[in-house]
């Protein structure tokens, strides 16, 4: 029998873990020193969230797995992050657009999770929400500046939006896991979340003079462990040390 709370925590935790890893790839490569530090700060926030969520997932599972076991020793099909967060960094605008689309979702999600009846999940949501508000502000400012910037920056970030938009519907994916947790009150109802997100995102994209793609093709699968070709490469790098030197600490 599936443990719905474990599954849910892994989905949230893997979102944080994988986008945190993607951001860490910018370390030393940022377009300017200030942004290099900003992105590694974001990365550390996400890895911190992943630590809390996966630690709790391990406790809920009750098989003695730690957050490190979950982060470093699962196979790709066992990762439940949304496809959006594993998409390649691309240029700086692509990274900021991915961040913006994700941050807006995360902010609304954590606000709702403040009403969870689960004490630990509520506490993690409260702490993460503070971080997320800043993340969203930062990524929104960049989307606005790049969109409403030069013709070159507008063209490139519009392409980023066109590329990433097809991965956004999955953020609102819902299945028996969500149904069970909502029924037991562990998580509140998510009715209207996608609409709220569209409005929040729409305001910023309009200010950025960007056009929401009309193409409705959607990619999903991450929540069930079916990933794009990119996750394997991420895991190869993420897991190398623990696979090559099991139990290594430093």
């Amino acid at each position, binding site marked *: 029998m599936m443990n719905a709370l474990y599954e849910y925590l892994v989905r949230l935790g893997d979102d944080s873990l994988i986008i945190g890893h993607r951001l860490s790839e910018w370390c030393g490569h940022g377009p300017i*020193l*200030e942004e290099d530090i*900003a992105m590694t*700060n974001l990365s550390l926030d996400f890895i911190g969230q992943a630590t809390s969520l996966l630690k709790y997932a391990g406790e809920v599972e009750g098989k003695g797995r730690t957050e490190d076991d979950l982060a470093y020793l699962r196979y790709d099909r066992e990762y439940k992050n949304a496809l959006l967060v594993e998409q390649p960094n691309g240029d700086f605008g692509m990274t900021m657009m991915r961040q913006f689309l994700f941050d807006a979702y995360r902010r609304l999600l954590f606000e709702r999770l403040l009403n969870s009846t689960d004490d630990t999940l509520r506490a993690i949501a409260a702490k993460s929400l503070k971080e997320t508000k*800043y993340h969203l502000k930062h990524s929104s400012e960049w989307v606005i500046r790049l969109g409403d910037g030069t013709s070159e920056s507008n063209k490139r970030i519009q392409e980023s939006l066109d590329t990433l938009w097809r991965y956004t519907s999955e953020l609102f994916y819902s299945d028996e896991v969500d149904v069970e947790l909502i029924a037991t009150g562990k998580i509140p109802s998510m009715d209207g979340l996608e609409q709220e997100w569209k409005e929040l995102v729409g305001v910023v994209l309009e200010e950025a003079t960007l056009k929401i793609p009309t193409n409705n093709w959607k990619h999903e699968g991450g929540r069930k462990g079916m990933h794009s070709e990119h996750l394997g490469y991420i895991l190869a790098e993420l897991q190398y040390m623990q696979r090559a030197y099991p139990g290594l600490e430093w």
Partner: protein
Amino acid sequence: MANKEWPLWEVFIRSKQGLSHKHVGSLRAADSEMAIENARDVYTRRSEGVSIWVVESNDVFASNPYDADSLYEPSDSKVYRHPTFYEVPDGIEHM
């Protein structure tokens, strides 16, 4: 060719205990809002502060270090400007 470098900003941070903002360094940013975000990321990541000011470096006017002799030395010889120069007569309380 146009200068493509973003303007330089001076950053001032007030710490939790501090009463005033102190200069901590400078950074580059496209505008004031981004300068504050960058300052937050670069200068407050170890809980250094609770308030940030940024000022475009162009707007800071400074005294000339070469004028130090004429500007500051004259006051060195005016010890009577310090309250410790004066003897307090007996019987004066609450000084």
